[in-house]
């Protein structure tokens, strides 16, 4: 197992109040837990992966993810069981979408 950690800054805060989880830790798959968290504006991505030696690939995938979705004060935690980058990117995008659905409705004026 390998543990990887990435940290980004300069993103936009989410209004989501609750965490969300997508995916299943099946062979060739992964789960992504996305949580609002007080991180001084940062977005962190922590990965525990069964596939060792792919740090460069993870770095590129996660960097591209952040340029698609520049988030702030969000913690992303991943349990990976050998998913390909295509599936990782898919789940990350799905996680962000689910989080967007966790935004409480605007208070009535």
């Amino acid at each position, binding site marked *: 197992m390998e543990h990887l950690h990435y940290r980004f800054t300069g993103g936009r805060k989410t209004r989501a109040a609750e965490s969300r989880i997508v995916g299943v830790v099946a062979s*060739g798959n992964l789960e992504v837990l996305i949580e609002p968290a007080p991180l001084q504006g940062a977005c962190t991505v922590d990965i525990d992966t069964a*596939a060792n030696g*792919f740090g*460069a*690939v993870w770095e*590129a*995938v996660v960097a591209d993810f952040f340029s698609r979705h520049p988030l702030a004060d969000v913690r992303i935690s991943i349990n990976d069981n*050998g998913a*390909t*980058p*295509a*599936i990782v990117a*898919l789940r990350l*995008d799905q996680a962000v*979408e689910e989080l967007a659905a966790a935004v409480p409705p605007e208070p009535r004026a």
Partner: protein
Amino acid sequence: MNSRSVAPRIWDAQMQGRRRRLERATARLGSGIAGKLVDTRAIVGLLEAVIEPGDRVCLEGNNQKQADFLAAALVRVNPALVHDLHIVQSVLALPEHLDVFEKGIATRLDFSFSGPQSARLAQLVSERRIAIGAIHTYLELFSRYFIDLTPAVALVAAQAADASGNLYTGPNTEDTPIIVEATAFKAGIVIAQVNEIVDVLPRVDIPADWVAFVVESPRPHAIEPLFTRDPARISEIQVLMAMMAIKGIYAEYGVQRLNHGIGFDTAAIELLLPTYAESLGLKGKICKHWALNPHPALIPAIEAGFAESIHSFGSELGMEKYIAARPDVFFTGPDGSLRSNRAFCQMAGHYACDLFIGSTLQIDLAGNSSTATMGRIAGFGGAPNMGSDARGRRHATGAWLQAGRETERRGDARRSMPRGRKLVVQMAETFREHMQPAFVEKLDAWALAESADLPLPPVMIYGDDVTHVLTEEGIANLLLCRDDDEREQAIRGVAGYTAVGLARDKRTVENLRDRGVIRRAEDLGIDKRMATRDLLAARSIKDLVRASAGLYDPPKRFRNW
């Protein structure tokens, strides 16, 4: 005048040889032959009587159907009597197909595909127990049966025979007609194993005149449901790629006539026709005419009115009743059962289709693709026939002309003639299982060529024939690439996070995207969130059974109820 006399040339040696072989058979088997029907227990004796050392023998090993009884009998001949045979065979599927080499009964091989036996074949080659003449595509091998590889003896499989020796090959006719024609009309001897002898055949597929001997085998010949793909195993990524194929290529060029290389990716395309393609208003505009085996994933597209006609290389186990109930779509005899024909379907795939799409294991920077892996000699099968530009083609269709127009011409524009072009699409997820990259700098085929002593690296689809590369990252249109560097970057630009993809020149790739040479899902107007399994017209084998109104009868291994 020269006083020495010259011996007159004999012009019917083959015919004389045939008579000798038949006489030996009669002498050896006696009452074991009645007309053309041979006693099941006398089969080894027949083979020993009829086959001579050094003969070229064609054993019917097809994709689906196997002359397994005759293969097992050939393994049992006395190697002192029958040896050094030259085997010409489409597919090496059964252990017996290689046992004959281990025993010295055969020493030389010309073939097309060896999927199930590819590792053992490589082993025997490295031990110098087999000398490979050449590895062919199906159509090449069939062609050579008429030029320089004509069999002296053909061992084939049929569903049934009548007392005269007429054969019914039924849905899995496959390679039989072409093997038999080449053999029978060059004084060869055709021996057919059949599942049963009947009074009246449903129809005559091979006339008795062409057949020398018929033997009833104790068990029906083996047939594999080779092309059945369970929709339950189609992934979301494959759905996304299928959407891109439909919107980015099929709709773009108006592809009406096509062949799909078998796989889950293409099954996903077929299962998206009644849903996604329908929603895009594409019914009647794409996918009318197919060169394809009648596998069950096609059922929803047929029922929805997309697929109007299908010609097949072979049949598919479990589809018999469905095919018989859809005679407007399939090629069926007056008896109602399918008539497949590998040679004609390959021809159709080569000349009468405007698109081939298939997946592969490895693609290099020039777009060459290969399924070759170390330690296996698998061969080619039929894909190169479909997956190549048909340079002999002359008739025009919209798709063919459009692809031809897009082809950037190299060299002197004044001298080049306008041509059409077949669409040849290679589909691949950038990473395969266990994070194996599909995109590589150098194909494993090179190393295999060296280790197996092959004259050329075994390439399935050549880069010059490929028009599009399709991955989960998008479509690279190689037609629009002006030179080899652009082609390389176009491929890198869809190679995702593989080492090949990460080494892309970002500026060039952006430029290619601006020009439409590379198109991503967003550029095609595809919402990736729609790429779920819910978009599939059938998500399980059971769904396919339902779509066929119960006519499809899946083989046991595909049931989950």
